[in-house]
């Protein structure tokens, strides 16, 4: 036995009475156990016993969905820790931010982790969406999962936006003021919607209470359920999307063949588009260890990146919110700055029509684009038209966001970020 020490300890533990009662199957030693471990464990059972080699290719999926899941977990964990201290009161919230920084053990790092993981989640939702689009992965039978994904994208924005207000500093106050003003531009329901969100006409205690409730219970619960459905559908749709032809590109992955001393057979009833129909079982490998280990490694990587950011960069905290001193310019959170830039040209078109059309188009996309070709490959030539349209929209959104973020100064005037703007003195 030349296994590494941690493995030997683990093996010993899972053979004890207690360990066996908890884990049932220890470290799998045979193909049978490799199967059993996947179906006997609550955490693992959502995944198949065997997984298509294509699904394991990091260059295909980039692990973006998993990264999001991990960010969500990190946000939940750090969020709960922050809730131990936080009070959604305009009198106290800001002071608590200061206390987290100065006297709570690891308070600052936890807040930083939460902040950066939150920003990363918005970013990775967008990247994930791009990946799914460019690989044509939203096509039948995964159309509705794409719609759920769009829903999760909106939920993520909602989670980030509601969390943005909680520190109750100038940044929070004015970003939410600007953000909810954009919502107020909607025709007919705009002002009502804004009133509903804020519990009043301006950002105040009522808004803070509402945003807090949404941020810590409503949106996370909905998001958790939708994530569960999202993942369940991935499983039911046969894992990640891949090209129709079996054996097309699967050989590219290097996996040493496992010992083929099978003394049993896996049987499943399958129909429709589930993975076993017409597939070559040799294209598949056991999820343990090939999938599970990769997932764990990615979790470590995501944790390391978030920790690194949190240790060396502090989450912003400006002055206490002051309703009578708006910063100039007051900016929405970065992911809404493209919208804010559009709104600066026209409140109605930029704040209502464009975002409304975009979300509708995203939701309807899988039902409009019915072509079956080019699924499971990045930038498939058959999808050049769709990819071009998507890329143009994406580039416009990114450019608008960059302009809104870096090129807009006082009174939303044009500034060049690498030039020091003239000192602003309060005019009298």
């Amino acid at each position, binding site marked *: 036995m030349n296994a590494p020490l941690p493995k030997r300890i683990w093996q010993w533990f899972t053979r004890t009475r207690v360990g066996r009662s908890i884990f049932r199957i220890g470290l799998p030693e045979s193909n049978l156990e490799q199967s059993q471990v996947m179906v006997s464990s609550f955490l693992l059972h959502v995944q198949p016993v065997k997984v298509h080699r294509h699904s394991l290719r990091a260059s295909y999926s980039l692990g973006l969905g998993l990264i999001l899941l991990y960010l969500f977990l990190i946000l939940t964990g750090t969020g709960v820790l922050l809730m131990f201290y936080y009070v959604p009161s305009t009198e106290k919230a800001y002071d608590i931010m200061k206390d987290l920084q*100065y006297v709570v053990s*690891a308070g600052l790092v936890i807040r930083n982790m939460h902040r950066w993981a939150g920003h990363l989640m918005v970013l990775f939702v967008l990247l994930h969406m791009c990946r799914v689009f460019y690989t044509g992965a939203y096509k039948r039978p995964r159309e509705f999962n794409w719609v759920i994904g769009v829903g999760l994208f909106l939920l993520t924005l909602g989670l980030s936006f509601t969390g943005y207000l909680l520190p109750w500093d100038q940044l929070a106050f004015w970003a939410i003021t600007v953000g909810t003003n954009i919502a107020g531009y909607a025709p007919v329901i705009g002002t009502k919607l804004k009133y509903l969100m804020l519990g009043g006409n301006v950002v105040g205690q009522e808004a803070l209470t509402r945003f807090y409730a949404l941020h810590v219970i409503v949106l996370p619960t909905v998001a958790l359920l939708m994530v569960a459905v999202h993942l369940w559908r991935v499983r039911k749709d046969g894992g990640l999307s891949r090209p129709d032809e079996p054996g097309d590109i699967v050989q590219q992955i290097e996996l040493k063949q496992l010992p083929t001393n099978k003394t049993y057979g896996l049987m499943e009833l399958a129909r429709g588009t589930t993975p076993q129909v017409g597939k070559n079982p040799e294209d598949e490998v056991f999820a343990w260890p090939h999938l599970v280990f990769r997932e764990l490694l990615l979790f470590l990587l995501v944790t*390391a990146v978030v920790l690194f950011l949190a240790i060396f960069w502090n989450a912003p905290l400006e002055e206490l919110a002051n309703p009578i001193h708006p910063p100039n310019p007051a900016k929405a959170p970065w992911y809404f700055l493209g919208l804010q830039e559009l709104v600066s040209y026209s409140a109605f078109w930029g704040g209502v029509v464009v975002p409304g059309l975009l979300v509708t188009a995203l939701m309807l996309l899988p039902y409009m684009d019915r072509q079956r070709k080019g699924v499971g490959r990045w930038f498939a030539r058959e999808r050049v038209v769709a990819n071009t349209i998507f890329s143009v929209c994406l580039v416009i959104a990114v450019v608008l966001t960059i302009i809104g973020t870096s090129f807009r100064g006082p009174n939303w005037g044009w500034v060049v970020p690498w030039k020091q703007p003239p000192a602003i003195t309060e005019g009298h």
Partner: protein
Amino acid sequence: MNDLSVRRFYGWFTVLGLLVGVLVVIGYYRDEYRGWKDYQRKFIQEEIRRASTPQQRALAESTPVQIRQILLSDLNRVDRCTTCHLAVEDPTYGGYPQPLAYHPLHEQHPFERFGCTICHRGQGRATTTTDAHGDVPHWDHPMLPLQYIQASCGQCHEAADNPAAPELARGQQVFEDSGCRGCHKLNGVGGVIGPELDKVGARRSPEWLKKHFLAPASVTPGSAMPPQKFSETNLEAIILFMLSQTGESAPGYYASMKVIPSASEGQRLFQQKGCIGCHSIGDKGGKVGPALDDVGLRRPPEWMIQHFRDPQTVSPGTVMPRFGFTETEARALTDFLLHLRDQKVALSLPSLMSPAERGREVFRKYGCAGCHGTDAKGGVPNPNAKTAEQVPGLIYVADGYTKDELKMRILKGQREIPALDAKRPPPPLYMSAWAGIIKDSELDDLAAYLFSLKPKGENLGF
């Protein structure tokens, strides 16, 4: 299961596991290491060094290294300054270098009641030197330089008669004398040409204020304000007074001593409450009650205080009504009467003054001197004004106006000042409309004062 790809997983687990481990250790160290702990250990070492008995030594050694804070719930403040400044209450640390120096104890301002930042400003919740001292981005209240510390007295106490804050009183004097109110509103009184000053002390730094007084346009481009010529002491005093105007009001207990009982406060009360109607000082005033010039010789202070609270209890049958003076007011009035014993006081009672004398006070009250010059002699620059690029003096108004015309002009003001050169920017200073601000009686007195300014024996006519 020991094939190559699985082995490679173990390699990656080791690398990433170590990376996360290292980051956790770094995070823990950065969180655990805090500068204030060093200061506390130094303090404990010093305490151990100074210990002369084993008990003292044991006590010093058992001092915990922990955050110290003063919770001030009424003020919504938490001052953690004593986390580093551990010896503020220990006189034996007098002369020690910071952060271990002793803070002379203020008997009326015990630390546990007042904390530190209410006077010194800075960021009480912070526990690092730079953040706590507050000169950092996104913190509006950096520590007040010690030379301006008296500004903080003005937050709770009336500026003028705080015997412990002479600089503050001087600053207020300079403010009123210089006619700042002609353009600026403070506590609701003043003009509208310049911005309100109610919160200026919270917004501006001493450096900014200094530049503002000496060369207003250098900090506020296009400012209409004429540069001020203050002496060095007056400049510092008015900066200090400005810094005291934070617009924050201390609650409850802290506001209870707004007025500090003093002779001058007593004098003001004496004039305000109409005591002179019955009593006389220096042969001026009523004859119903006794003259008060030497009452300090006849009555002990305790008697006088009780007399002010309830006259019947010390002199039964007296006709003096019970005015319901507060403890502080009774004390101030007593101080004033005791002060009379030692010194003659010239009362400035409006009822005893001539209209022109009262008008002079009005001229001062509304800051007219800010533009029209001391004693209305003019000389304040107003670039591009037709009147010799100056705000005109007012000593000859009696020649150009009737009293009614003059009063109308004060009430209506003059927004457009004729320009010398139409191509240049219009004159920045203009005459505010004082209607609604100045009282009718004050306006009458002011007109009388301005008419009285015409030099005697001159009647040039226009």
